């Protein structure tokens, strides 16, 4: 018995160590960026920064305050997330409701549903989408980032499924009291569906904030880049250089590399909005994701 306890204790210690190391593996690379952003330009350029800032300074963050382009891009992303979120939620909720009706109550319901499902299964792809946005004259406008993704079909189906789970009697009681469909939707169904609407909203925020690709193809002037496209444009030249040059060449080009602490600070500021909603993400996109999914 003693022997067994001993081996199970060893096992537990090993498990704790492995889990701890896996956690560190996720944290340290991100922490490294924090440390670089707080270090001096020369220390960052010489790759001296590990887990602790070298020559601690806030100069990189101070430079960002005056960086016009950074805040312009940040603003483009804020506008995009705001309108993207409003459109996503409004279209989702308003479309999901009629789709919960049976064929008899709502003639044409199945046609609409099939149109949605087909668009989810099949899409025109990158190039026809680009030509469309170009022909609509949306290039270089913030609407080119918002409108193509305004109707998230997966989210419509998600909200529809959630509405279907709400007891019909609630809805009928409201109809008997003389409510219109819109009132039933806004006063009965939406207040009952907060978890699913929160899920859809968080998808929308994270997706819109993190997307760099639409900015890259639809914004032909770098001035109008959303934040992630802007960050990406900062890195692309440096990456090329780092990949191709030997270390001595890279060190010869200190002016370019000394931006490394500045870029790290920009990355930190760019992910602050996501860190701020992280508790909500944990609640709805992590814990909420599995509730009821597994049969007890």
């Amino acid at each position, binding site marked *: 018995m003693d022997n067994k306890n001993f081996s199970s204790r060893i096992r537990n210690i090993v498990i704790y160590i492995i889990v701890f190391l896996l956690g560190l593996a*996720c944290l340290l690379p991100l922490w490294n960026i924090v440390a670089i952003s707080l270090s001096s330009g020369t220390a960052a350029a010489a790759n001296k920064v590990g887990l602790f800032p070298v020559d601690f300074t806030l100069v990189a963050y101070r430079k960002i305050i005056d960086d016009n382009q950074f805040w312009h891009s940040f603003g483009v992303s804020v506008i995009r997330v705001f309108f993207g979120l409003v459109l996503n939620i409004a279209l989702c909720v308003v*479309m999901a409701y009629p789709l919960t009706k049976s064929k008899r109550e709502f003639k044409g319901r199945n046609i609409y549903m099939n149109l949605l499902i087909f*668009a989810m299964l*099949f899409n025109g792809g990158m190039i026809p989408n680009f030509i469309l946005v170009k022909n609509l004259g949306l290039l270089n406008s913030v609407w080119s980032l918002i409108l193509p993704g305004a*109707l998230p079909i997966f989210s419509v189906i*998600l909200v529809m499924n959630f509405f279907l789970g709400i007891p019909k009697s609630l809805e009928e009681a409201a109809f008997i009291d003389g409510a219109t469909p819109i009132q039933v939707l806004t006063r009965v169904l939406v207040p009952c569906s907060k978890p699913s609407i929160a899920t859809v909203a968080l998808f929308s925020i994270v997706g819109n904030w993190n997307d760099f690709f639409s900015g890259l193809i639809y914004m032909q002037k770098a001035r109008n880049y959303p934040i992630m496209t802007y960050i990406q444009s900062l890195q692309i030249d440096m990456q090329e250089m780092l*990949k191709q040059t030997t270390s001595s060449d890279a060190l010869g080009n200190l002016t370019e590399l000394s931006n490394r602490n500045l870029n790290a600070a920009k990355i930190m500021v760019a992910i602050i909005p996501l860190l701020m909603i992280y508790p909500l993400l*944990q609640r709805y996109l992590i814990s909420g994701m599995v509730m009821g999914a597994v049969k007890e």
Partner: protein
Amino acid sequence: MNLLLFIIWRFALEQEEDMKTKSRLSRTGRSYHLMMLPGMIFLIVFSYIPMAGLIMAFQNFIPAKGFFGSEMVGLQHFAYMFQLPDIWKIMRNTVGIALGKIIIGTVIAIAFSILLNEIRIKFFKKTIQTIVYLPHFLSWVVLASVIVNMFNLDGSVNQILVGFGAEKINFLGNYKVFPGLIVGTDVWKEYGYNSVVYLAAITAIDPGLHEAAAIDGASWWKRVWNVTIPGMMPIILLMAAMSLTTILSAGFDQIYNLYSPMVYETGDVLDTYVYRVGLVGRQYSFGAAVGLLRSIIGMVLLLTANGLTKKFTDRKIF
């Protein structure tokens, strides 16, 4: 993508019997049609018009001439595509990288969830969970710069290699190690978030089974193999079915932010190829033809995933 499907599936009802109960109040459908209208406008403009635009795959599309003025060439672009040695290389890269991500990612996520389930100290468990779920929510743009910092020739990984007396490895510029880097960093980003589903599956296993096995003298390993993993099997199968949908998207954002001409040999995938040749190179018709092929295979995969989901569980995705 596969977790998105999972979330939708989780909100789905068990067989839609509610749909058939007929309301006592019959209403005219007009207000319902009105409610569908705004969404349908977006659907037609931003989904169906681009689908119609795929006609350009059968044309020599020139933007100035438009869809009606461009010359029709039939299947010429498809014939050309299948002659290119590139397309087979790209297919191989795409499927290879995607399968690597699916298989290794699943194994690591399952292993991590089993280990995490053994952790009894609440504070420790919560902290670890908070940390490992974070990378999933960060953009590849951000993570690419983290990865470049670590894996470039002077980065910390190479410093460690040199410290052990090994040779430096040009992770980002050597086409032999590049797919490994892509698979590894994707697993690193996603294993935490992927483990959520498996952890829930473990907690749903009847503790009585574990106790019975323990009384019969089964060791921890034996209990993991014979109780935990079989108990997780339905969810493992479900997730495997859903991950079919990712086979043709080996991860554009990730690869685009990390690759370079030096690693095209093994790192170029369908989406990056369409972007580079079709959009940047302005071979619109050829790019659309490759894109069309990708969309068709993607549709078949999604239908298969939905069919399998329906078979494994009594719910469906759509």
